């Protein structure tokens, strides 16, 4: 009887965990009465949007919550093997030797930002070996040898040499592999991964997820995986914990959660994820092309070689290589690509924030006159900028913190001499209404708004001049998934009313698929493929596009496309 109970004893049993932050007089309940169990060999995903307390929960397990945060209640029962009595980690001193014996040795952690999570001035090999030495498992020499071995295990090419390198010499994906090698150094029994793929490109994310699964199987790890991405959850989880504002709102096996969600928040989260997923019906029907509005011909941008008195000249760097395409009136054209693909650079070249080195950007304006924006005069450019507007990625950086909402939105109308005084105020209020904000917020400053609200203000500013074309650069990337859908729907709703065309730049194929008629796939500064969104998404012709599509995690546990090797 006893043995039976022990066999089912979970490796980690969290009961009523609360972590609070004391900020002056205010108590922020970041984690409130969270309970769950993690079993050997199992993957448990904690999913939630920003501010849900999922990361704090993960950090609380190893007592890594810094001041002023504190575990105020609950137990964290850790049982390294089924027959031993569990230890309550919550009771250990956060600076004592007992908790240090658990950290890295029993429970290891991988963090979100692979760049800042590695020390910039220590060699990779040593950073991996350090835990082995610290736990007294090996001497330094043996530990360094094992570090090389671990680098091989995480599939880093040329591990002997890589061990001698510094983090800044690695790419993001390589750094995250090194982080995983570091976490696995002491053969821990539990791996906590705190958004380990959020900062990575989608293809790299797929590789890292595959690697974690491989190592999990090989080492019999229990994995606690923190993410905001329902797609990733569907791909890897056994059990799922949904958190909202510090509390667990739903806890279920992954198939059950996706097929029969109970909590309204979970339902909303799933709806939002599926709406922007690859399996959903596209949001828009095919629009027959109108007349051509923007002709981009052979645009290249080459950063000149760096020369200085004592340094050798660096090779020229081409950010864009011979990009050509057309944009038709009333169309939404997507530009998709991974980081470094040149998609943002292209957007900036179209509107002359950057000046292309060669090529033409021919724009036909409302009156039917065509001008080449690549070498237009300031006056022509100013006229074109009234018709072509831009929405930026970071809603916190794109509004001047020293201007009220009214001044921000009114600025283009004012400086172009179109409206002033009472007329301007009325126009700003109607624009606010257009983007779904009450008119009385006009006198507030940007700091009074959330990210989604700010993005609406940015959209209102873009609409102020009655534009024809809006270039949106990762306009929804900084937002949580539920807000992402709302902002896209707002733009979709405005498009026919105002006769808008869009160039929508994003790394997220799901967003592009939802929003765009046609899509350009970019890679290393050049166009790989261009075509109707539906064709590209279902029947791509280029291997790169296929790889990109194959790496998108589907929010459907029944179709696990990522982990099948």
């Amino acid at each position, binding site marked *: 009887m006893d043995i039976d109970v022990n066999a089912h004893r979970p490796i980690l049993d969290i009961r009523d965990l609360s972590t609070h932050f004391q900020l002056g007089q205010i108590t922020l309940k970041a984690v409130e009465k969270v309970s769950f169990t993690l079993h050997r060999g199992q993957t448990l995903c904690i999913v939630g949007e920003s501010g849900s307390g999922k990361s704090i929960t993960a950090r609380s397990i190893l007592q890594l919550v810094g001041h002023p945060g504190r575990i105020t209640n609950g137990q964290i029962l850790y049982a390294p093997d089924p027959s031993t009595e569990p230890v309550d980690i919550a009771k250990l001193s956060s600076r004592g030797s007992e908790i240090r014996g658990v950290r890295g040795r029993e429970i290891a952690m991988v963090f979100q930002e692979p760049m800042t*999570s590695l020390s910039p001035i220590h060699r990779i090999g040593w950073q991996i070996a350090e835990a082995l030495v610290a736990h007294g498992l090996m001497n330094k020499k043996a530990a360094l040898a094992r570090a090389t071995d671990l680098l091989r295990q995480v599939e880093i090419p040329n591990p002997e040499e890589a061990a001698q390198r*510094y983090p800044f010499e690695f790419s993001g994906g390589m750094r995250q592999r090194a982080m995983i090698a570091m976490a696995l150094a002491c053969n821990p029994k539990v791996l906590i991964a705190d958004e380990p793929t959020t900062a990575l490109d989608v293809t790299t994310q797929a590789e890292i997820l595959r690697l974690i699964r491989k190592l999990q199987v090989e080492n019999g790890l229990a994995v606690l995986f923190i993410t905001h991405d329902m797609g990733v959850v569907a791909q890897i989880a056994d059990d799922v914990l949904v958190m909202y504002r510090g509390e667990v709102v739903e806890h279920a096996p992954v198939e059950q959660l996706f097929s029969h969600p109970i909590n309204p928040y979970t339902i909303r989260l799933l709806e939002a994820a599926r709406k922007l997923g690859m399996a959903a019906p596209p949001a828009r029907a095919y629009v027959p092309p109108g007349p051509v509005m923007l002709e981009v011909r052979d645009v290249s941008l080459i950063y000149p070689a760096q020369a200085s008195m004592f340094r050798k000249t660096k090779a020229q760097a081409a950010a864009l290589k011979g990009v050509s395409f057309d944009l038709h009136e009333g169309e939404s054209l997507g530009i998709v690509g991974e980081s470094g693909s040149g998609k943002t650079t292209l957007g900036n070249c179209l509107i002359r924030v950057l000046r292309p080195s060669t090529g033409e950007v021919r724009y036909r304006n409302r009156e039917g006159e065509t001008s080449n924006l690549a070498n237009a005069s300031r006056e022509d450019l100013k006229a074109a900028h009234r018709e072509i507007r831009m929405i930026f990625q970071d809603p916190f950086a794109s509004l001047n913190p020293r201007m009220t909402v009214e001044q921000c939105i009114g600025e283009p109308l004012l400086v172009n001499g179109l409206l002033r005084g009472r007329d301007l105020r009325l126009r700003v209020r109607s624009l606010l209404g257009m983007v779904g904000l009450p008119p009385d917020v006009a006198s507030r400053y940007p700091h009074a708004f959330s990210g989604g609200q700010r993005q609406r203000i940015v959209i209102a500013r873009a609409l102020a001049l009655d534009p024809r074309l809006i270039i949106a650069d990762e306009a929804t990337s900084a937002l949580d998934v539920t807000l992402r859908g709302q902002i896209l729907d707002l733009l979709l709703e405005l498009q026919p009313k105002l006769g808008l065309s869009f160039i929508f730049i994003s790394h997220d194929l799901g967003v592009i698929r939802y929003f765009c008629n046609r899509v350009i796939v970019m890679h290393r500064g050049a166009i790989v493929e261009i075509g109707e969104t539906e064709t590209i998404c279902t029947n791509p012709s280029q291997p790169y596009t296929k790889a990109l599509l194959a790496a998108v995690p589907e929010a459907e546990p029944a179709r696990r496309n990522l982990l099948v090797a």
Partner: protein
Amino acid sequence: MGRFIIRRLLGMIPFIFLVSVTVFLLIKLTPGDFVSNYAASLAASGETVDDAMLESMRARYGLDQPVIVQYWDWISGVMQGDFGYSFQWQQPVISLIGERIGLTLVLSVSTLLLTWAVALPIGVYSAVRRYSFGDYFFTMIGFLGLAIPGFLMALILMFVGVSVFHTDVGGLFSPAYVNAPWGWDRVVDLAKHLWVPMVILGTSGAASLIRIMRANLLDQLHQPYVDTARAKGLSEITLLIRYPIRVALNPFVSTLGFVLPQLVSGSVIISIVLNLPTAGPLLLQALLGQDQYLAGAFLLLLCSLTVFGTLLSDILLALLDPRIRYQ
């Protein structure tokens, strides 16, 4: 690394050249010259001044030449180790400045080491125990140290020395050793006197370095890589020394580039107050008396010293930080 150092050393050549031009122009900025100054003092004491004699003096000192020729004569001499002739002292400049520059260097460098030795642990303590009593205490001391000019502190110490201890805290040697040849005894005597100017000179530097170290370390303490190291199971103290302090040390070392100029600069003024046999008092006299080669030699050497300090800090920084080394 070797290439880095060679590159930096080569970079210094135009720098030192610029320094020499600046210094010479500074000296030549003053209206009149040593001879007119000399004539004025003769006239003040009621002696008759013979124009022909003044002209011959000018010719002898080369003061009748155009500035550019004078510069060339001076700098080509300097490159061969000849710093010219002091008009005031009627001696070669080199015999006047040798020991004084040496003692300035000893004072500045030993103060620098003291400053670091004091500022580093206190800065670390203040950051790690932020808002503790000790942190507030050292912050207050730091503010005071920044607010009280060095020469005022020197005056206060002199006053306390005289009125409480009945000793003169000025000078760097006991009377018996002032003109003694260098030997072990004289070094010991120097060490006994050196601490007063060191403390005075080091206070404001230490105060600013404590603040810099504290701010740097506070920036680093909450970096994600510290959490990574903690999650590995390192003890708090190992963790602290190996990661945030080690990283915070880099900007700390780079302060050498401006702390050394400050120290050399400050040593000039407190030397004048405390009457130390360093560069300060003689430089002031030379400047006021338009003794151009003496003043020029002091200025050139003091500036080169600090330029060299900047170089040293760059090299140290490159040794400490791979990101700079691999650039």
